[in-house]
């Protein structure tokens, strides 16, 4: 008993020589329609204007100053999906304070720099994750928090789960754990800051 009972393909009545065999056009199943919703978002660094107008020698300090300012005020978008969201909130709160790194949780993607994907990326949520990622202004980074965001975690074998958020959006830092401890998330943030300083002159 096949699971997807697709409509039986209609047989062409008479075969005209030389006529291309038109594949019977059957109506797309749900899975196929969903396939193009799950196409990954290309990574576009974008080029800043000052790189064209400033002479090379002046770009180095400008990059350093910009990277320093960007890394010390990373604004993550509150994007709590599942259980990791509780640990993310615990990291923001007073005991494992993230404010001391200048990290302020921000509800809207328009003003945020980091998207912390904390939880399972399901296939129904994938279009929303992609759209939110695209709506963020450009020097933006993604932290895949927890096993679910890294490769589907304990739910990786279920067919409604995207096996890892990096299949739909480019991810910069993977934080292991299910859920990762607040210290692990802080370590992920520091790794991201280190990465921003490293990649400043690309």
């Amino acid at each position, binding site marked *: 008993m096949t699971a997807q009972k697709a409509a039986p393909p209609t047989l062409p009545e008479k075969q005209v020589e030389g006529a291309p065999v038109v594949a019977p056009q059957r109506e797309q199943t749900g899975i196929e329609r969903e396939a193009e919703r799950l196409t990954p978002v290309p990574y576009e660094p974008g080029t800043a204007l000052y790189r064209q107008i400033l002479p090379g020698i002046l770009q180095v300090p400008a990059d350093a100053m910009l990277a320093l300012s960007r890394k010390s005020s990373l604004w993550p*978008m*509150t*994007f*709590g*999906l*599942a*259980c990791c*969201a*509780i*640990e993310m*909130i*615990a990291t923001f*709160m*007073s*005991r494992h304070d993230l404010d001391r790194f200048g990290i302020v949780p921000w*509800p809207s*993607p328009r003003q945020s720099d980091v998207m912390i994907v904390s*939880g*399972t990326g*399901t296939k*129904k*949520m994938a279009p*929303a994750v992609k759209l*939110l990622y695209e709506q963020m202004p450009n020097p933006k980074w993604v932290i895949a928090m927890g096993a*679910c965001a890294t490769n589907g975690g*304990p*739910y990786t*074998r*279920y*067919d*409604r*789960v995207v096996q890892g958020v990096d299949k739909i959006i480019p991810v910069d830092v993977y934080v292991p754990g*299910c*859920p990762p*401890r607040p210290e692990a998330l802080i370590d992920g943030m520091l790794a991201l800051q280190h990465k921003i300083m490293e990649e400043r002159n690309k």
Partner: protein
Amino acid sequence: MVLERDPALEVVDMPINMGPQHPSTHGVFRMVLVVNGEKIVDLVPHIGYMHRGGEKLMEAMDFRQGIGYCDRTEYLAQFSAELAYCLAVERLMDLQVPERAEYIRVILTEMNRLSSHFMFAGAFGVDAGVFATSFTYAFPQREFLQEVFEEVSGDRLMYAYFRVGGLAWEVPDNFVQRVHEVLVHSAQGLKDIDDLLTKNEIFMARCQNIGNFSADQAIAYGLSGPMLRASGVPWDLRKDEPYSVYDRFNFEIPVGNYGDVYDRYLVRMEEMRQSISIIEQALEQLPPDGPIVPEKMPRRLRTPPGEVYAKVEAPRGEWGVYLVSKGGDKPYRLKMRSPSFCNLSALRDMTIGQYLADAVMILGSMDIVLCDVDR
């Protein structure tokens, strides 16, 4: 000559999308509010953004591995979910859980109820507009409770500490003294949140008399837990269908009478006080030593074929497990009756006719956990 009006000028109802990524939807819940001015005309809830097949995966796991999925499904009241799952399998296998294990289970489940209601108080304060103050009051208390959970089970959030038949390992020696310490903190934290929110003029004005649900409406919609008790139905599984050793403690069940958002908040606050008293009673009656796993534990957990419906009073309501087994060590079908799923199905009829700002309060008063809703 009939002057017909230009349809473009007609005041049409505007659909507002309160979508999956929203500060006050407590996770990935989307509802499309059709609004006429400030009044909500219609509400279409969309869930399923966190549907990750916990039930399907538990069918592929044997009874020891399935416990991890209970924590991840109900990640604010993990011990209640584990307790329901273990009760179901134990009743199917007719296992007798030793005394000491039962008491430790009750203590940990009630402490988990405290930490879950603290999370509710924090999130509800944010919905009411007290931006982060209630969170900063609630989360230190959760940290104290999570410290004890970590000492007992080794993890802050995903405990997987209960086992079919009892517990995984013995609790640390200073368990009783640590729990007493934490209870002092919790009582103080509860008093702080009480002073901050309960008698607050604006909070009362915002919470009272919205989202009213009468008793038989609540029963018809299958609500359970604080939502049901706030509507005036005195129904608490710990009292009316006692499981494990709950019949040995005396505690009252807070019951509201209007069924509005303020009653739900008060019921949960009162429940926290009752939980503290239950924990103290359980600590006194805790047998100092004794086995935590039945002696005659079969090496491989094989259940006889059959079906069982075990239910537990989780902080959000009745967390039930309908377990069908065809023999063997894997459940054939496992349905998790999650209270958030049933309570959320009543959101539409609770919110139609209210104002737009109150929709957030009603959703917050339901205290839903989205992974519990979508499983």
